[in-house]
């Protein structure tokens, strides 16, 4: 970087930061090395010496007596050095307590007893039990997860590959281990590395379920400031971040989707190997995708030497010409048991099957006309919007198209706002105004009519998911008019209202109407019927919806009804997800692995929208077909890996299989 022209924006940010710090008298040192990567001029207040490696400690001890201010020599009389136990130190703070006594301070006996009893709390004797379990909120943990956490902590000494099959909650297991280390004062500085798409999800899960407030890193100067950090591995490996990370020492490093570390010559692998850490968890459902060398690389990252050097590994375990089949599978499994836990669905979970019912809807004539008009508008404008200031418009078009798949009621409000938005050209606003008039005039809804018929026929409790609040309100009015007791659940409710809503549904109400807010963290497995009133374009969101009922505790077959309108983008969604990859029959988590195998830089939604906005019908069908084939290939690739790993690991690496 030296000698290069600094990025003006970055340089300005650095200057501003420095100015703030100088103003706060925190440091104003001129860079004496001139090697700042940001501006080439100033060191970013990097201390000459790296900060001392953080020693994990118990929660900080109570503050010494507030008025403890005797001179050090006055306290020297109270010093004591251990003579019989090497490595044992008597805290220097003890002298402050003794000085209090000497100075005649006498506290109330009640306070003394409270103090004494407070210090008796939370005494630990190794990893005998998990202290963290009561502290985990909003998620049910299972025996195999507890076994896994205990085995990681006791036997594997905090370094493990968590390779459970998909959907068994590797994140929960990692969270339990993490929380346990934090509660016990063994971990203070923690780094989580994930794919970029999962950063926010990890942050949220750690916060809401484990009470661990992680910060997402994107400014390199933040690394040293925060103890709990999450970063995408792509961000972390950029030079400016990597150097900062390597300078620090972490107590725990967690890497999600660790199969991305399968190659030890990559920057990803080298980054993780170079981070100083005590405990490390590597999370992956597919530790081996192509050949056994990937496994060697993963294990070596975690615990070098477990599988010998690469030469030794090759001699002992690789067959000539067949890099996938181990020469000595029993021995390999024995060694893997020291570092890897792989719980299998078949041994820890038995879930009832899913039954999927696609319900095709034919839109009413006014709905159809409006849908076509909106789609024409979107197709016409979408390619033009996309860069710079017009990206907002593009986003608005996507939302509008999605809402049209839900209901005209949902779309009408968006159209109203768009027609008044200065972001759109005058001509566009005229068109949008016309569309709004037409949407507002529609009072019937074919999907809603079909839903009412369905609800009338289904004898059990039913969960109806929609993405949009306005659709939810309309459906609620209709269903209540039909005499159904309806619970609603959406992001606008307070936590108490949400609880009350779930309780009412559990205790009596027939219908649970929910937006996506109901898709996460709630156990609704007392119900077995899910109706997707509209289909999110993100398949993972659909999976989350189903996951509310298709989970441990469900005893009945799960019924999934997908309402979709012919000749709409939802038909494309059904074509791709249901017909091509049979998504509704995949278990929770598998879809992610299938989609992860797509060689596609764009998200599923973006690809879908790109296809949908192709004006020429034949080309559109062609694009859809091509994408469908890609999805199918991804699924086949996933199936192949799955079957390979089943053969390689079997049931021998489960948590209860023991060391």
């Amino acid at each position, binding site marked *: 970087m030296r000698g290069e022209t600094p990025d003006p924006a970055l340089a300005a940010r650095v200057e501003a930061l420095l100015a703030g710090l100088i103003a706060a008298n925190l440091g104003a040192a001129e860079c004496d090395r001139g090697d700042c990567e940001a501006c080439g001029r100033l060191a970013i207040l990097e201390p000459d010496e790296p900060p001392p*490696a953080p020693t994990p400690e*118990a*929660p900080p001890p*109570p*503050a010494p007596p*507030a008025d403890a201010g005797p001179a050090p020599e006055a306290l020297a*009389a109270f010093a*004591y050095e251990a003579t019989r*136990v090497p*490595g*044992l*130190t*008597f*805290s220097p703070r*003890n002298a402050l*307590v*003794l000085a*209090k*006594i*000497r100075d005649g*301070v*006498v506290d*109330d*006996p*009640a*306070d*003394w*007893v*409270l*103090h*004494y*009893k*407070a*210090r*008796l*709390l*939370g005494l*630990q*004797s190794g*990893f*005998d*039990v998990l202290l963290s379990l*009561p*502290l985990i909120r909003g998620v049910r943990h299972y025996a195999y997860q507890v076994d896994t956490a205990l085995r990681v902590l006791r036997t594997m*000494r905090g370094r493990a590959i968590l390779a459970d099959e998909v959907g068994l909650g590797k994140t929960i297991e990692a969270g339990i281990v993490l*929380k346990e280390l934090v*509660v*016990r*004062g*063994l971990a203070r500085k923690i780094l989580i590395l994930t794919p970029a798409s999962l950063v926010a999800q990890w942050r949220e899960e750690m916060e809401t379920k484990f009470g661990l407030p992680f910060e997402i890193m994107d400014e390199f100067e933040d690394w040293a400031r925060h103890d709990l950090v999450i970063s995408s591995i792509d961000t972390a490996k950029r030079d400016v971040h990597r150097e900062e990370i390597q300078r620090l020492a972490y107590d725990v490093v967690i890497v999600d989707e660790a199969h991305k570390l399968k190659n030890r010559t990559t920057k990803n692998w080298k980054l993780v190997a*170079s981070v*100083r850490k*005590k*405990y490390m968890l590597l999370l992956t459902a597919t530790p081996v995708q192509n050949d056994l060398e990937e496994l060697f690389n993963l294990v*070596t990252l975690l615990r*070098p*030497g477990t599988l*010998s*050097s690469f*030469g030794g590994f090759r001699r002992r375990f690789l067959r000539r010409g067949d890099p996938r089949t181990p020469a000595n599978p029993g021995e390999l499994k024995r060694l893997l048991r020291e570092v890897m836990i792989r719980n299998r669905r078949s041994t820890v979970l038995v879930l009832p099957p899913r039954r999927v019912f696609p319900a095709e809807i034919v839109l009413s004539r006014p709905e159809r006309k409006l849908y076509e008009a909106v789609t024409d508008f979107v197709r016409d404008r979408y390619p033009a919007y996309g860069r710079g200031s017009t990206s907002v418009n593009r986003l608005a078009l996507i939302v509008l198209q999605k809402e049209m798949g839900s209901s005209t009621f949902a779309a009408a409000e968006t159209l109203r706002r768009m027609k008044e938005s200065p972001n759109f050209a005058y001509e566009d606003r005229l068109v949008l105004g016309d569309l709004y008039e037409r949407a507002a005039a529609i009072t019937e809804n074919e999907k809603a009519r079909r839903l009412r018929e369905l609800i009338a026929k289904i004898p059990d409790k039913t969960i109806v998911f929609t993405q949009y609040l306005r659709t939810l309100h309309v459906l609620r009015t209709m269903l209540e008019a039909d005499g159904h007791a309806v619970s609603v659940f959406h992001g606008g409710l307070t936590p108490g209202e949400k609880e009350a809503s779930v309780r009412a549904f559990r205790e009596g109400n027939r219908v649970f109407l929910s937006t996506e807010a109901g898709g996460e963290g709630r156990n609704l497995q007392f119900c077995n019927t899910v109706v997707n009133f509209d289909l999110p374009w993100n398949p993972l969101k659909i999976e989350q919806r189903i996951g509310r009922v298709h989970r441990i505790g469900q005893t009945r077959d799960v019924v999934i009804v997908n309402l979709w309108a012919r000749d709409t983008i939802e038909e494309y969604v059904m074509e791709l997800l249901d017909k091509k990859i049979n998504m509704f029959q995949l278990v929770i988590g598998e879809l992610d692995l299938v989609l992860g195998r797509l060689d596609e830089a764009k998200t599923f939604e973006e690809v879908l929208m790109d296809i949908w906005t192709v004006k020429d019908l034949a080309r559109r069908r062609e694009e859809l077909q091509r994408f469908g084939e890609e999805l199918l290939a991804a699924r086949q690739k996933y199936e192949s890996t799955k079957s390979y790993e089943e053969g390689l690991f079997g049931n021998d690496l489960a948590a209860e299989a023991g060391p």
Partner: protein
Amino acid sequence: MTSPADLEAFVRRYFERRSAPLREEEPGVFRASLPESLRPAFDGADAIRISFDPGAAASAPRVDLVAVGSYLLDRIVEDATRAGWHTVARVEAPPTPPADVVAGSIRPKNATVAVDASSTETVPHLLFNFRVRMMSDERVDRFESVLVDSRTGKERRPAASLFEERPGLPEDGTVDGAGIAAAYRSACQALEGRIAADATAFREQAEALRKAEVERITSYFDRSVNEVLDSRASGASEARALELDRERRLAEAEEKYRFAGEVELCNVRTVLLDVMHADVTLEHRGARRTVRVEFDAATLDVPPLRCEVCGASTREPVLCFGGHLAGPECVSACGFCDRVHCRTCIAVEGAIAPCATCRRPACPDHAEVCALSRKPYCPDHIHACAICGRTVGPEYVARCVSCEQAYCVVCVAPPAERCQTCRSLAVAPPDDPAVAAIRRRDPGLAKVTKWRRASNQRFTVLIAKGLVWNQLLVTDPSGTVVLQKKVLGT
């Protein structure tokens, strides 16, 4: 591990003490009024809803869970430990007579116990509460309370009552700075003694793990470097990278398994403790011994007496006839009477000796030493020679081939193997009283006129001479014939 009941009791007491008792709002959910000191941690709220039940905390809205590691409990602990560093307690002597206390604690096996005199004094003690934390890649905590006599530095077992609020007094501490420092040192030494074994085991386990990890890492990198250098011409830079990686990994292992232990003094209580002294006499027919015992009013715990032989504590001492107090394992009793001696007496004075034949212990009253071998024998195995009077053990006893009586080997001399008595037979007149008695008793011998006779301290040996056969007779002092046999005449 803190039990849920202990945790709940502590939190309830905390709120009672600092603000107001908890009020149950719904099953398992309580309203807690926050003391001023805690409010900043809860956005200034003056009350919150809390629960000790994770289920209730999860299902009820806006409820803070109280559990080890929870935000709320951490704040409570912080607040509770801001005060209460030192307090004073007074524990007075109970009305129980010292004799009763002593009788309940000292139960000698072979002596009576009596308290001759007793006195009481108030002694300042310091009760130190320590929390010990040992860490490597895991953590073990211990809580240890050490009660120390501030004058002598002697450790005393703290009674449970010393941890209660009740004995508190608003008095000043009565121990000066030097006394506090000395007592603290004594307490630290006592604490080290208590935890030494556990700490050593913990450290050794961490060390073993570190060693294994270092060996594995070293071996891996050594082999990898060699492989890289062997396989590629450009392997040098790769090898350097591996070596750097090795140093990093080794540093990680050292850091991870480094043992660190810290002792933190939590708080201290000065305890003005009544200490009773009693002169206790133990007595039996052979010895009397007075010892001074001391016990405190809080525990009434008379320390067990120490065995004066091995130093071990014992609640059931034995008073030896030499006047020593010893544990049951350090004494030996005579197998023929109630006399008991400790191992010191036995070693120094040979007070109790085992019989060389049967090993049965015998006291000086019951043991005899063999005049020839100098070995001790019990009364059952010692033999007094009727000729010379020597006491000898069984191996120095020989039987005379003629009179067939047992004497010491000196008196049954080879080569004839006849005893001194048989060898000294002399002609006896017929009116010799022993001969006359035999002649009267046995008509067959009445006519015999030629007799020979010899006597020792126990037996009289007579030979009645016949034409062919002689008769040999042995009588005891009462004149009873103990042996009569025909022997060839000469």
